[in-house]
């Protein structure tokens, strides 16, 4: 890290606490608040399921067994196994599909934020730093995109590009960039006039170095808060698009597509097909929102004394 960047960090963090001290404070605040602990524990479990789902799943999530379809939770499955959370309309194990679904839903959530965040941060930095016509072009593009309802835009893109995990990530990511760009632009407009940036210029740093090594590190904190909320909204969007049949291919289990498949059987009282993926979506989104709230409070200097 350059001296200029270090100076910038000092400016944004006048108390000068080290990483270890901040981490200890983060844990202390989280324990005191309690709810963020539950959120972190649930998200760790979901991440564990996403990573190790293939080993944890008692059945192949796509293996059909028509004669054992719509079995209730705890019913006997094939080969002496048990359908812990029941089976679906094709006799596939709901628990195994839920584990695999975690992988797709979380991957799509994080990957889309990475795509959207990267585009938005670069666009915001360029708009804020250079101003003028660069700023105008980038921000008007953002305004045009925001003029369309996001879900409509996503449907249009997916109809043209076709469904699939990568297309879904692309569409959801592109849908998020404006949020990041606006925040980054506003912060960059303010930071580019600061003394430490002027100092970097005076010392002959190149423009890319000033943008990415001096300014960017000083605007990351609010972006992490935005990203935590955004993951939740992207997971919901994935669920909505999968529900509409525009998400991933039908043989790939996701929580949204599982919810969609439950539509026709809900009236027939096969509640487990809707409840389990629905609860998984709800808890994940809730956890990210709680985590985002905590992160916002934690990073807010005005609340620092209270925490």
């Amino acid at each position, binding site marked *: 890290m350059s001296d200029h960047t270090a100076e910038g960090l000092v400016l944004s963090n006048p108390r000068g606490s080290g990483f270890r001290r901040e981490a200890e404070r983060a844990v202390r605040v989280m324990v005191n608040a309690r709810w963020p602990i539950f959120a972190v524990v649930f998200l760790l479990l979901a991440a564990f399921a996403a990573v190790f789902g293939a080993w944890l799943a008692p059945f192949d999530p796509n293996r059909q067994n028509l004669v054992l*379809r719509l079995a209730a939770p705890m019913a006997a499955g094939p080969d002496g196994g048990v359908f812990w959370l029941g089976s679906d309309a094709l006799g596939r194990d709901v628990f195994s599909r839920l584990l695999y679904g975690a992988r797709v839903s979380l991957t799509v959530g994080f990957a889309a934020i990475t795509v959207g965040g990267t585009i938005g941060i670069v666009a915001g930095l360029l708009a804020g730093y250079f101003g003028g016509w660069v700023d105008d072009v980038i921000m008007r593009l953002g305004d045009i995109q925001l003029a369309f309802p996001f879900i409509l835009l996503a449907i249009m893109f997916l109809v043209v590009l076709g469904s699939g995990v990568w297309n879904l990530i692309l569409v959801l990511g592109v849908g998020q960039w404006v949020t990041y760009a606006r925040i980054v632009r506003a912060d960059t407009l303010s930071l580019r006039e600061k003394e430490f940036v002027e100092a970097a210029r005076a010392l002959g740093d190149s423009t890319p170095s000033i943008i990415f090594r001096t300014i960017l590190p000083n605007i990351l904190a609010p972006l992490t808060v935005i990203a935590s909320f955004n993951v939740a909204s992207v997971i919901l969007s994935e669920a909505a698009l999968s529900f509409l049949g525009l998400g991933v*291919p039908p043989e790939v289990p996701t929580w949204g597509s599982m919810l969609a498949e439950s539509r026709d059987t809900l009236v027939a009282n096969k509640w487990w097909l809707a409840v389990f993926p629905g609860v998984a979506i709800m808890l994940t989104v809730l956890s990210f929102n709680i985590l985002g709230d905590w992160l916002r409070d934690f990073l807010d200097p005005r609340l620092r004394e209270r925490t």
Partner: protein
Amino acid sequence: MKLRMHMPRVAAAGLLGAIALTGCAEPLEDTIVVGLSADITTFEPGMISSRDNANIARHIFASLFTLTAEGEHVPELAHTLEISDDGTSYVYTLNEGLTCHDGEPLTAEDVAYVFNRIADPANRFTGNTPGFVFTSIGFVNAEALDDLRVRVDIAQKNPIAFGLMTEVYIHCKDAYEAMTLDEAASNPVGSGSYRLASWTRGSEVVLEKVREPGNFQRIAWRIIPEASTRTAELIAGNVDIITNVVPEQVEAIDGSGRAEVQVVSGTRRMYLGFNLSDEHARMPGGDAIQDPRVRRALQYAVDVPTICRQLLSVECERATSLVNPPNGNASLTPYPYDPERAERLLDEAGWRRGANGTRFSIRLQAGQGRYVNDVNVVLAIAQYLEDVGLDIDLELMEWASVYTPLLRERQAGPLFFLGTGGGLWSPIYDMTDLAQVGSGTNYTHWDDPRWFDRWPDVVNAETPEARRVVLDEMLQVFHDDGPWLLLYFQPDFYGVSNRIAWQARRDEHVEIFEARLK
């Protein structure tokens, strides 16, 4: 166990509770409400093609003869038909005193105008009448002989031309000459017992009775695409009849005490098509299915009775050909489910499993939401084919705007899932899908001369028995080396309110004329 028995009632009670919150209003006594799954697009007689669209149009437009639920053709606007000795001239004699909805007398001149207008290439009509009926019968011309007699000429003798011509909707000349094509599409002036009162696109069509037959003053056709919503509306009493009930919802409807489900053995032929076009032969797996031995092997790979039992909630016998029973070749037996035999035949055909356990990859395309439980049926078929070593690249598409254009261009495949409407009144009607190699309904591009070269023998057979022999030989070829992986005749599920007496038909015709309050 006790709890399980009460589940449908619990589900129905829950549904009723939810419906009570949103409110419900039972239809008026002089109105019957029908809930359809698919939207309708036009009332232009030359453009109507979907079954739901035709079901509504059938109440607005009468025809010369009509088809009964039992598969008989009986007089409607005409009372007699004379066919020339060479079989190319059909003379209909109309009933006296006919009128259209605007009061204009309906004469032979009007009937001739209807036939010629639909066939006029300038109008570019693509509906069932020009696209299927007229191409099948080789329509040439229609001419009024006097006020009551009209002659229809066709290119050559055709044993089912009379039956096909019952599908032509009759209307009057003056009203349609005064309208543009766009106006005619939304302002039908028909000859049937109901007239169009209102049409809210995507939502509702209301018809008003103008003459007999019909026991209700109004028929409201509501478009309700989502299956659970249709079921909820039926149980709430907002709708009297619904089509395409999902099998999983049958118990909830029957347990509601307010409606019951009628299940009929339908005539729609469900199959997995092998697209044999040159273009598809160059695609992965497309070369494999060119070999009739591979197609035959795959017949043994799919457990059709289990699909029927588990996914359609009915017991069914697998189809032996494209002809509805009992009109098929009686000597044919359905392919049994025998995956070992399928694997052996695939080995013999030269498509052995590779190191990864796969014989060949192939794309399977299907639309979704059109047929009973279609997505699950397609997923099940894909699983069965993968079990014998195929690697299936499954593409499920939106039905109307994505899959239908592919079908229309005969581009779906190399494997594709489809159901085509059939009939009970003649085996030839069902076989007409494959009248020519280039027929629009030959979605497979199948060109086996043992089938297509036999049509003149069918037409020229001197006796019904002689014709039957030819048909059976053709159906044997279709069974052994045909372009369809044979599945089932789709059962149809109708939900019917307890306040209504109405009987569902096997041919998907939803006719309300005989429906009445109990």
